[in-house]
């Protein structure tokens, strides 16, 4: 192997002033988590950079995992060399030989973060460039569009050489912005909303409403599979499955068809808020997109939102469906979402749901029955599942068959 470690550059974290320690710790934790099955890896994180020392673990695998971690702007496989010009020359040459540099074009870009190093950037560019030109056949300089760009960073502790910069996922480390509940229906939008919220550093727990026999076990499986995909971002995802049959039946018994959907949403929001409080979260994330369906008109949102003053984060609010689908494709949730099972939103859909429900009317309907005990009952009977992207804690009844 050419490279012995990976240099990780932080994204926006770098600008976060005094909170920086917290951000770096979170990122380190998340990186450690996604790489937990590489036992030989060592992670060193400081204020400006993180170094992942491979100790013989597979570079490609590690890079693939890192690409999904939020809070990383970019990363580079690097060779670490002591601060000795002869050693730097020698390692650069080795690196170029291993990258089959013959006949290619290149440039050297040195950066001297440690100003005490005796050679300044231009001197280093010249020295290293000259050394490579002399020793590799057919190598030529092209400063505008080189095939290979040797980056040399002189830092306090050592010098780092690299030829590659791999783009990271950007955003903020998951968990650095706090915790929120994600309402996960099984459709296309909610996992995308979850992904985008995680990108801004939120740690999410999913809430799913399950109404057997009106919704099948497969629709629950679908949500579990979506949860596993979201777990891919930082290794795990907690999913709360709320038994919702009783409440749903009662609503359709007591409330006029036109308002049933609005009332149902208000109940869901109340339950989610209750779970949020128990789990010590500070917000609720939904996949709502303005005007997409009857429950997502501004009137509907105004009426539904009345039941809580917890911040509701709607990452997709102003996005078009086609753009949402594109993201769903990228994060690999589209195919799961497209499985054709009834979910809690599609079932009981009235022929003509109210697109302009009013708060006073909704409140009036809710006086027709005592729903509080039922909400408590639902919350108390929640099934909570810890999902992992690598299926490890779902090691299941089938294990011996495989």
């Amino acid at each position: 192997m050419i490279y012995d470690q990976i240099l990780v550059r932080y994204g926006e974290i770098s600008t976060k002033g005094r909170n920086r320690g917290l951000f770096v710790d979170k990122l380190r934790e998340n990186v450690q988590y996604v790489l937990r099955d590489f036992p030989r890896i060592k992670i060193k994180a400081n204020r400006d950079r993180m170094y992942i020392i491979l100790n013989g673990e597979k570079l490609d695998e590690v890079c693939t995992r890192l690409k999904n971690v939020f809070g990383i702007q970019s990363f580079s496989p690097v060779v670490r060399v002591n601060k000795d010009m002869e050693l730097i020359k020698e390692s650069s040459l080795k690196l170029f030989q291993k990258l089959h540099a013959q006949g290619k074009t290149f440039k050297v870009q040195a950066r001297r973060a440690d100003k005490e190093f005796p050679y300044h950037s231009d001197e280093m560019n010249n020295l290293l460039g000259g050394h490579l030109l002399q020793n590799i056949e057919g190598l030529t300089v092209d400063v505008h569009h080189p095939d290979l760009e040797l980056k040399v960073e002189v830092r306090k502790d050592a010098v780092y050489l690299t030829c590659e910069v791999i783009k990271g996922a950007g955003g903020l480390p998951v968990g650095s912005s706090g915790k929120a509940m994600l309402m996960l229906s099984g459709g296309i939008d909610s996992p995308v909303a979850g992904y985008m919220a995680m990108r801004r550093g939120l740690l999410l727990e999913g809430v799913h409403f399950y109404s057997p026999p009106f919704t099948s076990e497969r629709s629950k499986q679908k949500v579990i599979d979506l949860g596993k995909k979201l777990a891919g971002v930082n290794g795990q995802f907690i999913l709360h499955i709320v038994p919702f049959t009783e409440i749903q039946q009662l609503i359709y018994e007591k409330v006029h068809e036109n308002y049933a959907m609005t009332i149902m949403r208000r109940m869901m929001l109340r339950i989610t808020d209750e779970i949020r409080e128990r789990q010590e979260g500070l917000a609720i994330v939904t996949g709502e997109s303005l005007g997409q369906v009857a429950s997502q008109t501004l009137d509907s949102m105004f009426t539904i939102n009345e039941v809580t003053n917890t911040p509701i984060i709607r990452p997709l609010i102003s996005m078009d469906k086609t753009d949402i689908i594109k993201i769903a494709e990228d994060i690999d949730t589209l195919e799961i979402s497209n499985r054709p099972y009834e979910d809690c939103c599609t079932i009981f859909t009235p022929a003509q749901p109210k697109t302009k429900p009013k708060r006073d009317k909704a409140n009036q309907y809710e006086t027709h029955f005592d729903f509080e005990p039922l909400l408590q009952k639902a919350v108390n009977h929640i099934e909570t599942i810890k999902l992992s992207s690598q299926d490890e804690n779902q090691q299941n009844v089938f294990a011996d068959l495989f």
Partner: protein
Amino acid sequence: MIYFDNSATTKPKKEVLDTFYKVAENYFGNPSSVHHLGLQAENLLSQARNQIATLLKTDEQEIIFTSGGTEGNNFIIKGVAEKYRNRGHHMITTMIEHPSVLNTCIQLENNGFDVTYLPVDETGRVRVEDVKRALRKDTILVSIMHVNNEIGSVQPIEKIGELLKNHPKTLFHVDHVQGVTKVPLDFHESNVDFASISSHKFHGLKGTGAIYIRKGLKLAPLLAGGGQERGFRSGTENLAGIVAMAKALRLGMLDYEAKIDTMMDVRDFLINELQLIEGVKMNTPKQNTSPHIINFSVQGFKAEVLVHELEQHGLYVSTTSACSSRTNEPSRTILAMGLGEERATTSIRISLSFDNTMEEAKQAVAIIKQSIKNLKPVMRG
């Protein structure tokens, strides 16, 4: 008994049979049923798909289950022909493919397709330049096997994949039936679009196989029906066989890690010893060859007679490939290598599994020597 005919088929592993039995008994639900038994079966199916995809370094959406190698090859070649016929009517393959590829191509020729059958060099390998030269504007598919089933030559799949990178309209199919678990191949890295494998070649059961279809590509189904396998391949899934295949593939790859060196030692020993016998000519090349196939000819000995004589002594081998041995045809691969009719009709194939030992190899050599001696007066007479 010494079983040296593992390219024809392998003995199913005990663990694999256990899985088959348990799944067939306990999870008999139809994965398409809406009730719990159906869901359970569906979960098993998706776990099997996931495991196979991971082992093959692909995505689970890229794996479709079939009934085996022949279906896989037919499905891919005909499926491409049907789906992409608007792009062109030309295909490229080689003269040494398995009959399930060659005869499918002949069927397509009868349907107006134009097929180029590339020759191979004296080591049984297709030349990348030949592929390059044969490419036309209307070439929709290149179909080349990874490991040849008759003599074991390994084709330059990575290089051909590299070449085809510059021909985005030409798709690339690899018959990986003999290669899987013996000669690693990374489909993604080699730019392979389609590949086929068959379970009974790696200690699974007959009647199960899989194909790999690179994400985003389409294929016209061979079997229409209830839309199983995302519409690619209808028919109620052979769940027990599929789960057994997932296990067989996992165990096969573990065997590769643990026993590949032994297999190579056994092969080298056999080649070295057999070469010393008078009248024996090695057909398997020295380089770029699979660790499990050894093909040789015994001058003047009709292959079928020798196979029966060896069988008398408990050694099971075959004449060329099992599929064409029934018709008693000369080996197509050996003919294509230019070694002549005589070598092609007298060829014997030994094919190893990871369970074969050096001890067996030593016995086998003794049996072969003795059999040749026994038959010599008759054959030369």
